[in-house]
């Protein structure tokens, strides 16, 4: 799942659950997840 797709789904779910205050936190988490996925210690199936 891409981070953009995850963030869109997460924000929609939070709004559906009546938690709009989650949106900025989810955006911050998305930035942290992007940094985590970009780290050079991650393994990939094609290398």
């Amino acid at each position: 799942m891409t981070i953009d797709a995850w963030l869109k789904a997460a924000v929609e779910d939070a709004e559906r659950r009546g938690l709009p205050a989650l949106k900025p936190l989810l955006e911050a988490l998305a930035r942290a997840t992007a940094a985590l996925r970009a780290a050079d210690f991650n393994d990939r199936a094609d290398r």
Partner: protein
Amino acid sequence: MITIEEFGRRLRARQITSAQITDECLQRIDADNPRLNAFIRVTADEARQQARDADREIAAGHDRGPLHGVPISIKDLLDMRGLPTTAASRVREGHVAARDATAIAHLRQAGAVFVGKTNLHEFAFGTTNEDSAFGPARNPHDPSRSPGGSSGGSAASVAAGMALATIGTDTGGSIRIPAAACGLVGLKPSLGEVSIEGVVPLSPTMDHVGPLAQTVADACLVHHALLGDARATLPAPMPLHGLRLAIPRRYFCDLLDVEVRARFDEAIARLRAAGVHIDEIEIHHTAAIAPVYLHIVLSDAAAYHASTLDAVSDRYTPNVRIRLEMGRYVLAEDYVRALAGREVLTREIDAALAQHDALVLPTMPIPAPALGATAVQVGDATEPVRNVMLRLTQPFNVTGHPAISIPSGRTSSGLPCAMQLVGCRMQTDALLKVALACEPQITPESPRSGNVGG
């Protein structure tokens, strides 16, 4: 307030009793707790009884060791039999602990006197102590400021002379941050060394139990009691000449308040002048520290709180509830990446310590922030308070290395600054020997002058 070491000397010389020092602490609580809100529950009657029992034992020749008769406060996250463990949350209304946490049982065996249970950031999930069902604890050095967190009430209790030492927990810095904010020594031991059984968890693979105290020696004595080694005596400090420390400047010294940096540089200069060899080193993968920490702590906390978030969400403070909810959105694949990153970071710190006795770095990039502040200016940057406060402590919760925060002076407005020493995994005693040696150079004032009670 008198240190544990000095109290022990005077107790055994029959110059003071546990009842006297306990009464002194209880009087300080009566006088100052209304403005500092350090305690959730004061156990005055029980403490006086424990103190009388301790004095009777000493008179009968039964000496339990360095903590015998010592008044100590306990973060209200640890179970004490017969008392509620609130975790500063309405979620736990009605709870009463059936038995002591292992760490508490060890302290009881060591003869400690429990004066009460201290305020904290709700469920230990925050760095300021502002989000508590019992209201914020306040910093004795400036009550308009946070005492740090999550063990903020604990730190305030010792800094204000309401206890000789306190027990905190540390998942991202919750012992070392309030120790730094309140001018105390705070020890996060090596991961897994002190039992977390009977402690309300935040992230079980990063939770630590440890002491906040007035001096390194006192922290050492309490640490050994927590381990069940009540009769342990102080080790000899490591000789300063020949000691090898390392400063990891990049990342760890990039973002510092100007006065925190000045106090750090001054302490480093004093250590060098005393004969300590200090290298500058590089630690790699530091960009991964915060993301790794965040994905692990959010996932662990969300798992523990899932059922109460669904059933009684209104009983959480709003800020803690919303952060706990965030953890329910972490993907499994990213949690696994964080675990891989944790291994990498652990090896990085191991490598940095291979040729050195300890790392040395600031504890908190800023002095204690104002209550209510959500962002703070550090140099040219405006940063979220929480991120800044965690920045230099959370790496060692991820990796499990023992770390101790030691006061390093004050800002021009009198707020404490602090620096950390970080040692090899499962070698907390070796770190304490280094800290005992370095403390006189790091702390440019008498430990007792840091006390602001009374």
